[in-house]
């Protein structure tokens, strides 16, 4: 039985965002809000006065800290979108609170901590029960 577990982490260093017109952003997509890479969880539009132009109200969740950020901007403006990458790994073992993960190219990564809280417990539980565990990681560059 394969269990999919998602969690997110970040690579510091290389800066990589690209601009996108605010109205082209989509729910479940990503955007930089207040300097943080966020997953968009809510998007709504409004206008000031009947003949005003659309403004977009964005609510995003920081993909690393889970903190909520909000912003409102004219829908014609450009927003920064973080480059998010996502990798799937096979969990090989857990040692001293660190995960050993097998990449798709056959290499092993051991620099990731077992996450705290429910998610960590669940990974550990499944691992101890001898189940196959897949781990998905989201990266944001920058």
């Amino acid at each position, binding site marked *: 039985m394969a269990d999919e577990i998602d969690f997110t982490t970040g690579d510091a260093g290389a800066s990589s965002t690209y601009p996108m017109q*605010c109205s*082209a952003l989509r729910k479940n997509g990503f955007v930089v809000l207040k300097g943080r890479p966020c997953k968009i969880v809510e998007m709504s539009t409004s*206008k000031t006065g009947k*003949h005003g*132009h*659309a403004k977009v109200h964005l609510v995003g969740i920081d993909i690393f800290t889970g903190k909520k950020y909000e912003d409102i901007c004219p829908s014609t403006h450009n927003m920064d979108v973080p480059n998010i990458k996502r990798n799937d790994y096979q969990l090989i073992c857990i040692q001293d609170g660190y995960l050993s993960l097998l990449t*798709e190219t056959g290499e092993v990564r051991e620099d990731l901590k077992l996450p705290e809280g429910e998610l960590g417990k669940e990974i550990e539980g499944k691992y101890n029960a001898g189940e196959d565990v897949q781990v998905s990681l989201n990266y944001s560059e920058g």
Partner: protein
Amino acid sequence: MMAAALGPPEVIAQLENAAKVLMGRERTVAVGASSPVGAVALVRKGGPGARKRHHLPWLTLSSASMLSIYSYHLGSQNHHLQFASIFWCLVSSPETSKVDYVLFQAATAIMEAVVREWILLEKGSIESLRTFLLTYVLQRPHLQKYVREQILLAVAVIVKRGSLDKSIDCKSIFHEVSQLISSGNPTVQTLACSILTALLSEFSSSSKTSNIGLSMEFHGNCKRVFQEEDLRQIFLLTVEVLQEFSRREHLSAQMSSVFQRYLALANHVLSWNFLPPNLGRHYIAMFESSQNVLLKPTESWREALLDSRVMELFFTVHRKIREDSDMAQDSLQCLAQLASLHGPVFPDEGAQVDYLAHFIEGLLGTINGIEIEDSEAVGISSIISNLITVFPRNVLTAIPRELFSSFVNCLTHLTCSFGRSAALEEVLDKDDMVYMEAYDRLLESWLTLVQDDKHFHKGFFTQHAVQVFNSYIQCHLAAPDGTRNLTANGVASREEEEISELQEDDRDQFSDQLASVGMLGRIAAEHCIPLLTSLLEERVTRLHGQLQRQQQQQLLASPTSGSADSKTLDDLYEDIHWLILVTGYLLADDTQGETPLIPPEIMEYSIKHSSEVDINTTLQILGSPGEKASSIPGYNRTDSVIRLLSAILRVSEVESRAIRADLTHLLSPQMGKDIVWFLKRWAKTYLLVDEKLYDQISVPFSTAFGADTEGSQWIVGYLLQKVLSNLSVCSSEQGLADDTVQLLVTLVERRERANLVIQCENWWNLAKQFASRSPPLNFLSSPVQRTLMKALVLGGFAHMDTETKQQYWTEVLQPLQQRFLRVINQENFPQTCQQEEVKQEITATLEALCGIAEATQVDNVAILFNFLMDFLTNCIGLMEVYKNTPETVNLIIEVFVEVAHKQICYLGESKAMNLYEACLTLLQVYSKNNLGRQRIDVTAEEEQYQDLLLIMELLTNLLSKEFIDFSDTDEVFRGQEPGPAASRSVSAADVVLYGVNLILPLMSQDLLKFPTLCNQYYKLITFICEIFPEKIPQLPEDLFKSLMYSLELGMTSMSSEVCQLCLEALTPLAEQCAKAQETDAPLFLATRHFLKLVFDMLVLQKHSTEMTTAAGEAFYTLVCLHQAEYSELVETLLSSQQDPVIYQRLADAFNKLTASSTPPALDRKQKMAFLKSLEEFMANVGGLLCVK
């Protein structure tokens, strides 16, 4: 229990004693040393012992609620006790405020008990109980209101129940009441009014009626008897009281409150929903729920209602109290009801004419020359609206001419004045928009009035229409032409409020008003069309000038003059906004599905003037939207309708030019929406006008917009240009983009128009641009992209030569396929698939596929289906790649849902099988990827289960082929088939059952808490049971069990809607068992269990009456299947009855129930007979075992 041994006569004797004690008593004896619990314990004991205990002052609220629980539980077993105990309670409660609640509960319990024990009680005792209750209330004027009303309700219920077996005569009650009224004592008169109100509510058989466990038929019969005699009696009593009051000069506060109550009672009577003599049981429920009741009494009311003094009385009453807003509401409502009088009450048309004339005189006499109060507006508008809707035109025109024209003048005056007040309300942002409501109603009345040209000569209403139209325009234009946003003292108010995207557009919010005003505009076309044209043309010029000014300021980089300029622009935009909306509603109708016709008034208007019109100048005006209309020589000799259209094209042109000049930020997206909305509405009706549909056609129209004319070719080109211009800038304005692509769809959805469209170069540019997925089109939101794709596909079915067609599809569809294949066939696709640009590419393709499916029509399904099928296979591969990206997975499933939804009904056997196979594979992949997947998100919301919902939708769509099927054995695919359909490998049932296999384990009870998921799920499983009952026994054991469990759960703990679905699923299942005759099959055993469930549901539990039919059908089929078990159930139930009387009653009822269908057999006639007996059964003993 001591009292258990007492028979009914003893109990009654006891009650009478108790009543005597009560009536004669004023002694209060306090008994000490007992807790509230003790008090309840005493209540429980009941019987003679208790009677001696006298008062228990500590019988507090908690014991009151215990009492109600107690009476609830005891209902079926020791019902004799109940009377005694309740009475004891009533008797023993001291008159402190704390016991009000106990009294209230006691009255409720009495009411329920009397109904339940009715046939066991002696009629005399019931009679004395009723007298006792009335006396009780009479003697205690200071009872809390709610207690008094509840006791009176009990009296009313007794009277109503008694009317069934004629044991109780209403007459005596009326006698008592009229004595009370004549007492002159306000308190007593109020009480009399309460009695009458209670009777009225009880007999009205509406939602106000108490639930006494009797059939709708009983309620209906009671109501019919009541409305013939007693209701009229009440009305006459009420009228007498009102007459008495209206004669008095001064009313004390107390008197005035009594007056108000009787007025409300009169309203109650006049709003009575008279039940026609022969109305089936099913219609009764529907009938009673109707909202707007008109007064249609039976013939016997003639004398009472046609007496002109009655009508006059209500006018007099209103004049007297009109300043009291509460009472005025009632008096106006009474008048509105009288204004709706119709039916057999009128002996002939003459009587109706007299009545109407008299009424209008009274009305005009009341409202002419007075300042109407705010609180009167709605009432007066309902009176007028009722008069106009209810009285036939020939009656309306038969009243004296003078009178009728004063009436119409008065209506005109009121409409204009309410319109102005409504505008004021908007400026002040009032919560309660009374004038708006009144205005709406009057405008609606106009619509009914003017749409009849048989009874009124042409032009009869023109002058009035002009007035109402002018005042509407005036209220919606800014100063100096209009009064928009001006407060009463002429001060302009302007507020910039935040408007959310959910706010309805004016054209929808005010659609009714606009439709009426548009209609009035057509009637007065001579005046209104030129008016709109000049208002628009003048504003276009101003808008153009203002935009140029602001552009120059920008170029000079002068400090932004700011708010003054933006106010000027906003005012212009708002003016143009309303002018476009009115023009749109005036020139064309909005029809769904059918071809809208040019309104006859407009056609006639154009024809009438066509001799004075210069066609060439008209075409010139139309074809030069960039120039001022008045700059064209001879501009006054143009067709006015075309000139009005060209005025809007001029607005549109100013907008397009501003976009080209990079002034988009100064434009109003709202006005942009209005323009394309108008053009769409106009194009549907006028573009390529089909001359066959009209008796006569205006030459200017056919020259300018007819088939094969330069005019129409030019307009199509212009509209397409407009669409492109909008789409290039409006990716940031969702609403504008939506309306724009809708215009595009309109242009191509009819073949004739599409033929012109595809001749335009711009169309091909659009197709190429969209296929290349480059900005700006790829920035459009996904619904807009879908619709755009739909339009492009529809356009492809226009008439083209083969070569062109080939080229078109190469431009439109092939790139889609190529790009898609290029992406997914890349070697490293599994690695790159999560890259944003790859994902966007994939998403855009999937959206486009949905759009293609949406474009399906009967004549293109063959091509589209084959095209889409290729993709579907690839999409399944994508499921694998994107298994961890739910939004993409959902979109893939959505493609399948759309294809199934739009195409399955046209597919022949073999094509359908292809689709089934694809769906099956999709489900298999989905299942593999989701097995063991846990959704650990604690904040799970419904939308996270979108995939489940989509899959259920897909399955339901596949099933729908079983009842909606237009396919003609692959007719549309002729020539593509290798021969007769290959052997059937996959059927709908296979896919659906596989899908259910997949869905069932995932549909946990938690998920069923989400209403949409729950409903979709039960809809699906009911469909399956109905369509493939033979497949159910073949299900794997686990699946079978969970399906049965789902059904049970649905019947026992879900909404009544779901319960009904489950009951509907049971009948085919039981029939399936009967066919199979395998008595050890799991389904057979399961149906046995359901028999018990349905039995309990019908016999023991409270359930809504509308469920009885579904439950009854299921029940009968189950009984046929399990006759022995059914007898056993009945036996068990009977043997648990200790009371011989109850036992007998139940046994008789059960015998009767199956008498008509012994032995029960699955045959329609017997089933119907059973259902009928079941209804009787429910009425007879339904309330006996079911305690409410």
